């Protein structure tokens, strides 16, 4: 009797993977060009390409491309890749399809870090530290993110099901939000406004110097995640099985926390919280590549994350208009239906992971 095959998978050949990667890379390239060309100021494609390749053009256009659109593109690429990888690591660590830096309150933790840094320093009148402003903001966000992550990990060891973990994450997020509200109450109006705009999320607030700071945290974070590929594959069998397979699970756990907090913290510090990318991209990659093997999934997740965030960024620019919508709203509008589709669709959460 022929065995009933519930879901065809795992039989994808290396050639198919290669093709998919190639398609993704081409897509990212096209989206990058679109992202550079589209915007409130109309700059012809030819001129844009000329400017990027180092040729002189109209000064105003050069400024817009090199100092505004290119940093935004680089930020979007780093954010898409970083948040997606952070989400993948968290889903594997918790073996929970609903885990992600935003849902589990890691972004809120980073937000709290930034809020305390920006507002509390102002309240007690410590302004001298502003010389190291960007670096300090990144550190504050990373500390906030890792604190929440460690708290969740402590609680998660007592919880087995997805829903409880999710509720705990939301509660930590709310707690962090409440503390931020209290801080806001005592802050100057201009700082409050600054923070509110920050919470909407924006890929265009980081200039080249901030991108430098971001890179110095995100790249080490991603390098750690690459080293975690092998242990993460074993972690798919559960913590005890992984330990029996030869994984030092305690070490791996803390490396994953470090990596995800570096990435999510540094990115959130400058872009504000960007919802859903970390949650949905690993699912999209698993469906596209039909595998849970992190050797394929990690690069796949990075590329899918970049592509998706570029799409969101292009939408947020509202091509042809002068307005820019908050990126956080766009990612949520795309992300929430995807999650609903995963939950309600015939593929159950349990088997999609």
């Amino acid at each position, binding site marked *: 009797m022929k065995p009933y095959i519930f*879901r*065809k998978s795992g039989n994808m050949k290396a050639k198919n993977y290669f093709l998919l990667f190639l398609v993704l890379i081409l897509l990212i390239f096209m989206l990058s060009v679109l992202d550079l060309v589209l915007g409130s100021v109309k700059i012809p494609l030819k001129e844009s390409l000329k400017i990027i390749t180092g040729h002189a053009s109209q000064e105003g256009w050069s400024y817009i491309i090199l100092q505004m659109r290119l940093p935004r593109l680089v930020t979007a690429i780093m954010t898409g890749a970083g948040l997606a990888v952070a989400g993948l690591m968290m889903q594997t660590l918790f073996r929970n399809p609903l885990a992600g830096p935003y849902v589990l309150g890691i972004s809120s933790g980073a937000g709290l870090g930034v809020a305390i840094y920006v507002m509390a320093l102002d309240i007690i009148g410590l302004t001298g530290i502003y010389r190291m402003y960007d670096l300090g903001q990144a550190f504050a966000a990373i500390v906030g993110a890792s604190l929440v992550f460690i708290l969740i990990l402590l609680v998660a060891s007592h919880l087995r099901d997805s829903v409880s973990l999710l509720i705990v994450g939301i509660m930590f997020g709310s707690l962090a939000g409440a503390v931020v509200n209290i801080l806001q109450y005592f802050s100057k109006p201009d700082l409050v406004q600054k923070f509110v705009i920050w919470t909407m999320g924006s890929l265009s607030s980081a200039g080249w110097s901030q991108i430098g700071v971001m890179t110095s945290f995100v790249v080490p974070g991603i390098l750690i995640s690459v080293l975690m*590929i092998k242990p993460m*594959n074993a972690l798919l069998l*559960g913590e005890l099985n992984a330990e*029996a397979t*030869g994984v030092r699970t305690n070490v791996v756990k803390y490396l994953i926390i470090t990596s995800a907090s570096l990435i999510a913290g540094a990115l959130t510090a400058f872009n504000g919280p960007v919802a859903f990318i970390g949650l949905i991209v690993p699912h999209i990659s698993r469906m596209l590549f039909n595998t849970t093997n992190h*050797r394929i999934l990690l690069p796949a997740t990075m590329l899918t994350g970049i592509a998706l965030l570029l799409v969101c960024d292009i939408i947020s620019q509202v091509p042809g208009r002068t307005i820019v919508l908050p990126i956080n709203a766009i990612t949520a509008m795309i992300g929430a239906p995807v999650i609903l589709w995963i939950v309600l669709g015939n593929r159950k959460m349990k088997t999609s992971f």
Partner: protein
Amino acid sequence: MSLNKASCMLSSGNLTIGYSDKRRTNLLQKNLNLELHQGTFVCLIGPNGCGKSTLIRVLGGLQLPLAGWVKLGENEVRKLSGQEKSRHISMVLTDRSSVDNITVEEVVALGRYGYTNWIGRLTGKDQQYIAAAIEKTGLSGFENRMLATLSDGERQRTFIGKAVASNAPLMLLDEPTAHLDIPNKVEIMSLLKSLTMRSEHTCLVSTHDLELALQMADMIWLMIPGKGMVCLTPDELKQRNYLNEVFGNKTVFFNNETGTFNLKSV
């Protein structure tokens, strides 16, 4: 019992197992002096909650003993590195928290964890071990099936396949026959027995299938709640009527002649 020092694979001395936290200590067994001999098929039996799973975890180095030592050959298990442990001891656990969206072949391939490089690249030699393990465990044709689509028996064979692929001389299995129907139970036990017959592996299997264990095991480790362990051959165990003392109660008794449990006539 005469003990051949050279063939002793795993040994323990004054081993005390259980759980302890700040508030209280739950002592399961104390002063266990055990010896597991190379190439033997040993079944660990005992009533629920006497500490079988804990013993398996302690022997495999997943959990620290409260006191005493466990040695693999000449080396203390707790001092082995992750890689050394994965090369010498393979374990099949009752933990079911695995994701379902992983193929049989990928699970079996994880048995090579202790041998692959930093990114887990499988060499030709690794592939040979994986293919052999899949064949030995009767999983041919199942390579690309997802764990979610397997029956309990097939799933159990997959995890045994992972242990076989590691080629670790010592296999520790925690209730591999739980939740299986009788043909599957027999199949799993014969599979494990055949692995030890070829002297490639030494198996310690905890199980509740006493009748099967008595028929197949070279040695029975009978754990008596709070009173330590009796290590005897199945025949010796029957002769001394140990099973009745441990498992017998008002309604059931162990028939030493047929090797089965029977109901007492009311």
